[in-house]
């Protein structure tokens, strides 16, 4: 990571921030860093790993029923407390008009990018499989 990317990562590590709360320079850097040119780079993976966007069931229903095109949906993951989270990966594929999830960019930009360790999510036991 570059020093700027590292500073941004540390900022996001310190407290959840939504896209709309970032300043123009931070948005530009995050956008440049996250936009995949092919598959994710190690830097992108490091920045995205364990980052989620909190979402309510109402927001999720609105995204799926009203906004997203047919054959495209989003799926939230429930943590151990039952709260719902979208993977921050979605931010990488929503900024441009041609992006898969552009229809919900207005929603995604409002959701704070939050560090959620894997331990926060219940691990399935073999019996759940």
């Amino acid at each position: 990571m570059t020093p700027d990317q590292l500073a941004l990562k540390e900022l996001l590590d310190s407290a959840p921030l939504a896209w709309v709360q970032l300043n123009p320079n931070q948005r530009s850097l995050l956008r440049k860093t996250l936009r995949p040119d092919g598959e994710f780079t190690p830097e992108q993976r490091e920045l995205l790993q364990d980052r989620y966007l909190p979402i309510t069931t109402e927001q999720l229903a609105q995204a799926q029923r009203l906004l997203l095109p047919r054959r495209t949906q989003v799926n939230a993951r429930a943590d151990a407390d039952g709260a719902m989270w979208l993977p921050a990966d979605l931010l990488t594929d929503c900024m441009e008009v041609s992006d898969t999830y552009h229809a919900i960019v207005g929603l995604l930009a409002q959701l704070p990018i939050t560090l959620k360790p894997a331990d926060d999510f219940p691990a399935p036991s073999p019996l759940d499989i």
Partner: protein
Amino acid sequence: MRTLTLFDPAFVNRPGFDPDAEAWFAQVEAAGSVFAEGAKAAYSKFFVQLKSDGNLAPFSNGMLLAFAGFSGLGGCFRPITSRGNALPTNVGFVAGQKVAAGLQGNGSAYINCNVGFLAGQQNNQSAFVWHSDIYASPGVYLGTGFGDDGSTQLGDNTLFANGPFFRCSSSGAISIGGPRTEFDIALCQRTQASEFSYLSGSRSGNAAVVSQAPLLLDVFMFTRNSGGSPTNPTDRRLSLGGFGDALPNPGAYRTTCNTLMTELGVTP
């Protein structure tokens, strides 16, 4: 009208791919994906061998998806074959998750095949995934049905030494999950009312499970369909996945898949 001769470059240079493979290539490319060098030849051989072994037609009563050998997310959702030419739904995968070796899960994204097992298919069904990473955390890679409705665990850690879990519910559903520690196939299928057979890489076995009518749920990949909702999606990488009628030769199918993966460079 122009007539090609044997010495015409347009004729000589024609790769001679299998026609069904070419039709699929066109769909994948129309979805924005680009095949890697040599990948079309590898897939063409794959089609030819599947047809020769009778291992392609069973998936036309379900769905067969390929995730390796091309760049671009769109091609992942263009089936090699499917019942009624059904198209799957992308639920949460983004472009950066498409890697050369396959499609990388993230514990949330999954594919809804929009088709499932049919009434009466309980004694003629198969499901498989081809894993292309190594890991130890559980997750569900493909399936339908609930985990607590009388499912019988067919294969487990003890039997397969950190291999996948196969489950068959009393109501005829299938699910395949991990952990898993090698690159290879995980396949289970039923051809008779009292028994399931399964493959975990080169290991195979049978388990006595009396069948009932299948749950009429669409099959999900990268997770299991529990009453319309995904349960325990995996964060690992798959290169192939499919389900349908039972395969006439599961062992040959594994060999064909492994040959394809070797030729695509999907190696540890």
